[in-house]
């Protein structure tokens, strides 16, 4: 559909950026979410407010931040507060519109595992980094977006450990807990977009140009269903690619590779 070539990371980043609405208050992580937010801010969402879990509000990084607490996030920001305030007065209070999440595993109901693979909690086969702030982001941000490459091992039917809540075993079960956030709204992969259905099950809602339902099925750990109408995403625009490559990540630190 387009002659432009782009990496999987560029494709995911651009599609994530398009999900953001002007004026959104976004809880940002480093890497692709940071690039997606800054791309959105430079295109259709100039009033996006970037909040970092390190306690930085309204950051305007003048270089690519390489850690969640990069000093470039602070210089020129609107406000800086402690971690307790960021998690309580911003996230728990309901002042965050959008959170970005990732993890080693995402399951059929959008639950995320970033804790252990295999074995049990006390004796894991692989020990992952753990929650960090993602348990609270998944619980309390109004909307959550997940960015992840589409691979079978990343999409098991059931995660080994629910580090951060999607819809548990179905939307009603999440609602029972009283957690204020709406849960994952879209999963952006290199093949397309998955969205929760009425029961909170992730179903394929869109394919990227040139990608097929078969590819999705091959790379998903459960019998993935489709929403009524599977649309095709708009291909990356030259202007989007140019912004990413020339201004936002000129070194290709997060965008090169597959």
């Amino acid at each position, binding site marked *: 559909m387009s002659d432009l070539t782009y990496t999987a990371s560029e494709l995911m980043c651009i599609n994530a950026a398009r999900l953001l609405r002007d004026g959104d208050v976004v809880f940002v992580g480093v890497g692709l979410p940071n690039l997606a937010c800054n791309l959105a801010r430079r295109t259709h969402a100039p009033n996006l407010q970037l909040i970092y879990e*390190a*306690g930085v509000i309204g950051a305007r990084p003048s270089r690519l931040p390489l*850690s969640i607490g990069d*000093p470039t996030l602070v210089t020129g920001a609107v406000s800086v507060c402690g971690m*307790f305030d960021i998690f309580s007065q911003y996230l728990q209070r309901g002042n965050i519109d959008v959170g970005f999440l990732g993890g080693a595993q995402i399951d059929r109901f959008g639950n995320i595992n970033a804790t252990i693979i295999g074995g049990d909690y006390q004796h894991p086969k692989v020990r992952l980094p753990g*929650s960090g702030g993602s348990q609270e982001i998944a619980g309390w941000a109004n909307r959550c977006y997940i960015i992840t490459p589409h691979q079978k091992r990343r999409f098991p039917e059931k995660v080994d450990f629910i580090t951060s809540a999607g819809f548990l075993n179905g939307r009603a079960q999440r609602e029972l807990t009283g957690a204020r956030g709406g849960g994952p709204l879209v999963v952006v992969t290199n093949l397309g977009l998955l969205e929760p259905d009425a029961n909170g099950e992730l179903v394929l809602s869109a394919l990227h140009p040139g990608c097929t339902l078969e590819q999705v099925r091959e790379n998903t750990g459960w019998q993935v269903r489709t929403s009524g109408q599977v649309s095709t995403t708009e291909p990356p625009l030259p202007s989007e690619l140019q912004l990413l490559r020339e201004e936002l990540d000129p070194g290709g630190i997060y965008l090169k590779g597959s």
Partner: protein
Amino acid sequence: MSKICSLAEAISSYVHDGDTVFCAGFTHLIPFAAGHEIIRQGKKNLTLARATPDLIYDQMVAAGCAKKLIFSYIGNPGVGSLRIVREELEAGRLEWEEYSHFGMISRLQAGAAGLPFMPMNQTAAPDLERSNPNIRRVKDPYTGQDVVTVPALNPDVGIIHVQRADEHGNAQVWGILGEQKEAAFASRDVIITAEEIVSEDVIRSDPNRTLIPGLIVKAVCQVPHCAHPSYTQGYYDRDNVFYLNWDKISEDRATVNAWLDEWVHGVQGAEEYWQKLGSETHARLAVKPRYAAPVNYGDY
């Protein structure tokens, strides 16, 4: 009553084998020089608590100082895995207690406030709560709904790096604040390391900037560049190259031990360590000044 002493004296006086130690700083102001001094003094069986153990605890674990880790995210920030910590945990050689970031900072907040626990709203994620018996519940007495609780964390020693402090330990911080204040108020003994020791007048010219009051501080140490390879806002940049290098160094215990021999045991302290980094690194981490707008307190 000046509390100024050398970092070696402060560590020797206030960090004891078996203590729970909190080296504060979220990405910013991590007191690496204090961690290295703890390694040099051969402290043992420490319980190390931090939201993100970062390289400082990876190094202390590698050096055999730790019995247990309390954490909420074990990664090399911006790089990937924290290899030593991960390997020790997977091998069952290191005890641990795990929370989310908010659980961790709520534990400190309770400890700092003298409360036995802090409540948190439910996040819907069940498994960490099931795995950690310290995460409990109480009923909100107004709605009858459950809230989640974590117990106060009161470290034996809190080590806090700051931009400037006076001889009494009144300490001013800007940039990312992380859990610096909560860690200080929660800890039994507080060691302040400072880029600069300034006169009390500088502190008193801007009381709202003082994050930690001297009255809860036991020792104040002047340690320029204490935070390298992390950073001090306005003083020097984060050494991202080192964070990347550590990913390679920590692939093998032999290279880790060689690194510890050269950069920790092989130097007397922070000053020698900094000089050894060399002028190219100094130049790479240098930062041009950018000042805050003036603030007038009024001469009342």
